[in-house]
């Protein structure tokens, strides 16, 4: 059996198990009894488990693409899951969806309030955390923030989790401790190093505050999206949604529309600017600290390489300018040579030919040369003018 057939067989087997469990769940919606399998297994998770098992054998390119498919599928599956099970026994999909939207609303409400009164109260769950209505939703509602964290990993030498390390939750928030630490004056032989470390910590806190404010604003957006989704559904009375895909597409359309309105606001402009600027300030300070370490080890620093790159480009520009000047001078030299050749040809010409001969069309070699020289003269002068301009 080929490897592909193995995957297919594995997939079909997994599918059978999941469908059995989920058919049970469908029966539950119709008043039946739910099986233990269905309680234990989440549909999206089943797919995820299967993919984790087979993806190790997939080529890298295809794997990346399939990862995206799986990620997109999670939102879709979660939607289905909530419609099938959201309200428990005897609940129709429409009611289950309504209850789920209520749950989402409750999750977003504190964040919406937090967005207008930052910082949020201690102990508040972040929108991506595992509240029941939010389960599995990180790939949908948090898409902008999620991709921000992925992008962040490419420009920071630290994992994204590190930048979130100082959080305000708990009875004795670490942030307060850090702030106390940062207020200690730096003294002694290592005073500058201490100061740099303090600055790094300050910038980390600034970034944390900016990213939380950004995320809180997305909480507000989530709330607006849920309300708009519900309104859009009610507006379709008489034209009911008849498939899961249709429902999902509507959900995307409404979320995209709410997002588009939000990101054109001045509020978003400020949040975005603050998020990017605070991240860069943190990275800049980090680079400074790294440079200090490199310098201590007698290794080239980032700052030194930047200086060299700048000087190298300046030299290249000078080089190009001189090359242009040399080309211009070469053209002028050619022009002069041609003029000299023309003059020499003229001087070498025999004495004035008889008038009759001059009226004939035949030309002596010297005349031809002189004429060609004059033409070349004009062309070369034109080229030299161009070279000077360039």
């Amino acid at each position, binding site marked *: 059996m080929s490897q592909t057939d193995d995957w297919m067989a594995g*997939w079909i087997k997994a*599918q059978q198990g999941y*469908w059995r469990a989920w*058919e049970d769940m*469908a029966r539950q*919606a119709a008043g039946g009894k739910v099986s233990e399998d269905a309680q234990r297994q989440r549909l999206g998770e089943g*797919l995820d488990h299967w993919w984790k098992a087979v993806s190790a054998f*997939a*080529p890298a390119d295809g794997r990346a*693409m*399939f990862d995206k*498919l799986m*990620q*997109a*599928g999670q939102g879709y*599956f979660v939607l*289905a899951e909530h419609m*099938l099970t959201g309200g428990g026994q005897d609940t129709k*999909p*429409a009611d289950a969806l309504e209850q789920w939207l209520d749950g989402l609303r409750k999750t977003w409400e504190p964040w919406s309030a937090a967005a207008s009164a930052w910082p949020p109260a201690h102990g508040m769950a972040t929108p991506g955390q595992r509240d029941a209505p939010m389960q599995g939703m990180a*790939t*949908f509602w948090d*898409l902008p923030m999620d991709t921000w964290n*992925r*992008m962040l990993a*490419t*420009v920071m030498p630290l994992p994204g989790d590190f930048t979130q390390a100082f959080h305000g939750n708990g009875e004795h928030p670490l942030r307060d401790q850090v702030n106390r630490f940062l207020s200690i004056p730096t003294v002694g032989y290592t005073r500058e190093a201490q100061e740099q470390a303090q600055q790094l910590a300050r910038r980390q806190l600034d970034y944390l505050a900016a990213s939380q404010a950004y995320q809180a604003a997305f909480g507000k957006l989530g709330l607006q999206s849920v309300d708009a989704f*519900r309104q859009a559904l009610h507006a*379709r009375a008489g034209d*009911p*949604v*008849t*498939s*899961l*895909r249709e*429902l*999902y*597409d509507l959900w*995307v359309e409404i979320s*995209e529309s709410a*997002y*588009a309105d939000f*990101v*054109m606001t001045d509020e978003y*402009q400020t949040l975005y*600017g603050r998020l*990017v*600027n605070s991240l*860069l300030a943190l*990275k*800049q300070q980090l*680079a400074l600290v790294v440079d200090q370490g490199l310098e201590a080890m007698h290794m080239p620093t980032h700052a030194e390489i*930047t200086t060299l*790159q*700048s000087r*190298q*480009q300046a030299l290249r*520009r000078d080089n*190009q300018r001189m090359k242009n000047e040399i080309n211009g001078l070469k053209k002028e030299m050619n022009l002069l040579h041609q003029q000299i050749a023309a003059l020499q040809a003229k001087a070498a010409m025999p004495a004035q030919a008889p008038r009759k001969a001059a009226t004939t069309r035949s030309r002596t070699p010297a005349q031809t040369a002189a004429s060609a020289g004059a033409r070349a003269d004009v062309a070369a002068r034109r080229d030299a003018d161009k070279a000077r301009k*360039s």
Partner: protein
Amino acid sequence: MLPIDIRPDAILRELNEYGEKLAHGVNNLMQVGEIACGVTPKTVVYQEDKLKLFRFDPPADRVPSRVPLLIVYALVNRPYMTDLQENRSTVRALMEAGQDVYLVDWGYPDRADRFLTLDDYINGYLDRSVDVIRERHRLQRINLLGICQGGTFSLCYAALHPDKVSNLVTMVTPVDFQTPDNLLSHWVREVDVDLLVDTLGNVPGEMLNWTFLNLKPYQLMGQKYLGLLDTLDDPEALKNFLRMEKWIFDSPDQAGEAFRQFIKDFYQHNRLIHGGLTIGEPVDLRNVTMPVLNVFAEQDHLVPPDASRAMRGRLGTNDYTELSFPGGHIGIYVSGKAQKTVPPAIGKWLDARAPAR
């Protein structure tokens, strides 16, 4: 009650179909092979640093226009968008419209290129490429076709070197960078670009990808892939999808100094239309005296039509034409409708202004 008429068994059936499509899709993804882009044969005629100047090999059975056309692409993303595949190639369609087509490929800047400025790009690389073509064809002037940011570069170049440009075509080119519907412009207004470039050096392509994806995050990062499921069983449609996907994420890093100047002068201060823009020399759009064809897309979410239309009345030319296409920023190059209408219209416009043979 919400107007939803979906039975639980119907939901399960949909999910079952989804799972089956995914499983079969794995097979097709494994077999899809290499995704080739940039299909029209071409030859490198000039090379400098990472820049390559290509000439697309003219067909043996046709004499192309006497005045060649140089395509100037953006620094962002890669120019093979104009030659994605055989039936989706603006380059090929331009050649079929009788044009002799050249293309500037800026390459992938690395950290050693960090201090390249707009002056280096426009008055250096681009100007030398234009000179190479002029010398090859023994012409004083050639035609330019600038795309997106490359269109802005071409416009600046035409203003700085009007004696070398015979006709200028701009496609989805921003001129007014602060129209109310310009999302990118809105976002960068409060970004400290000096801090960005001083800290990162070159601006990573991933950062640009993030920015572009966030213009429509739910569609571009979620719904699009669900849509792909419907085409997974069609190898050709899958390849088309993967070509676009490759192009979308093939984002070169941006040379830091050029990026700094582009964001500050164009996006933040809108100097191309407010004045005060200097790229080596002051850029004055009134110096653009050659004929200009301005092509824009009506549903462009990156360069809104008004950002391009702002060219009207600001140039020194008496021969200004607009061509609007009912599509988006990418559709204008790859859609079947665009292939049939846009390049032929450009060819016709250029032919009408070509010197007599």
